[in-house]
């Protein structure tokens, strides 16, 4: 079984998503290397600290209270970037901009038999998805404005300009 545990550890260490483990008191017991993107928070500064202390933004919007329900009631919770502007202050390893880092977070209880031992927090980077959505949304807004402008122009042309049939008739030399 030890071999399997080691393999799982390797998977977790290399995963392209953040993993934070907490005990029943919401004290951080582990964070994987992906979470080292949090500036100034080396593993030894995070582990052993309370979750709210290590990541203060979790105290906003009632997120920490909902995380408590994971260990107290065993329910899963999800946090979307639409409601939470970066629960974890993550950055790219070598940031070239101050662009925000959008995340989605899920948390599940960890059990041993009937007892809840703690919880895992899974942190996904959805920045590329979010930026693409903002671009699409802006493009859709511009298209809507353009459509409204064209509808207006069509109305004005109908009032002021002769119809296409009349123009064609003139070009063809009809009286």
């Amino acid at each position: 079984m030890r071999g399997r545990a080691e393999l799982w550890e390797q998977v977790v260490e290399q995963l392209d998503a953040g993993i934070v483990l907490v005990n029943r008191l919401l004290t951080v017991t582990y964070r994987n290397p992906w979470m080292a993107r949090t500036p100034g928070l080396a593993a030894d500064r995070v582990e052993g600290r309370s979750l709210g202390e290590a990541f203060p933004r979790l105290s906003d919007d009632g997120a920490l209270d909902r995380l408590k329900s994971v260990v107290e009631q065993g329910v899963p919770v999800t946090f979307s970037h639409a409601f939470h502007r970066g629960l974890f202050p993550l950055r790219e390893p070598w940031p070239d901009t101050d662009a925000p880092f959008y995340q989605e977070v899920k948390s599940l209880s960890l059990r041993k038999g009937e007892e809840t031992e703690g919880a895992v927090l899974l942190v996904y980077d959805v920045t590329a998805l979010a930026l693409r959505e903002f671009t699409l949304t802006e493009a859709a807004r511009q298209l809507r404005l353009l459509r409204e402008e064209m509808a207006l122009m069509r109305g004005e042309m109908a009032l002021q300009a002769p119809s296409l049939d009349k123009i064609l008739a003139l070009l063809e030399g009809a009286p």
Partner: protein
Amino acid sequence: MTEFSASHKGALAKMMSLGMGRAAASLSRLTGDRVVLEVPRVEVLAIGQLDEHLGGVADQEVCTVLQMFEGEVAGDAILFLPLPSARDLLELLVGRPMTLARFSELERAALMEVGNIVINACLGSLSNLLKIRFSSLVPHAAVQSLRPMLQGNDDNGDRSRICLLVGSRFRVRARAVDGHLAIVVGVDSVRALAAAVDRLLTTTAGRWAT
């Protein structure tokens, strides 16, 4: 089918109202707006009775958040909203207009969070008051027809399942959006649920029924 008396239904309706109250508080804190969640009605229905109560909604595409739960009482909790309602709710809660015709992945994630809050609050209310422990799985949000979800895994549809159907009216900034929460459980869970409500009514001398 295990019959639920008026007392049972009254107690369940109160528990759902309590849960919705907690969900509203949580959503208010999340959005910074005052969110009120009303419960216009709570019904306990056999799965076959749902059609007449939902009036064709079961076959339409709706926005759903599904959270399965296991334990002494096991089943599916589904928050569902007609698509225009889901769009309105997102606009009200997120605070920006939805310009895309279809829900994007990120909008789906936002709806999943709303559904997760509502479902956890209502299941939590049942769990705390009835002293039954649930273990919930990760929620899943989708735009799809409701019928396959209500019928369960059985190809023929498990007609002995019952549904606790909770009307849910979100009120935000003077606007109202209607949806439903359906808690669907199988026959064994129905018995366990009825027994737990009996225990509550006995220990509280029926106060929960009125």
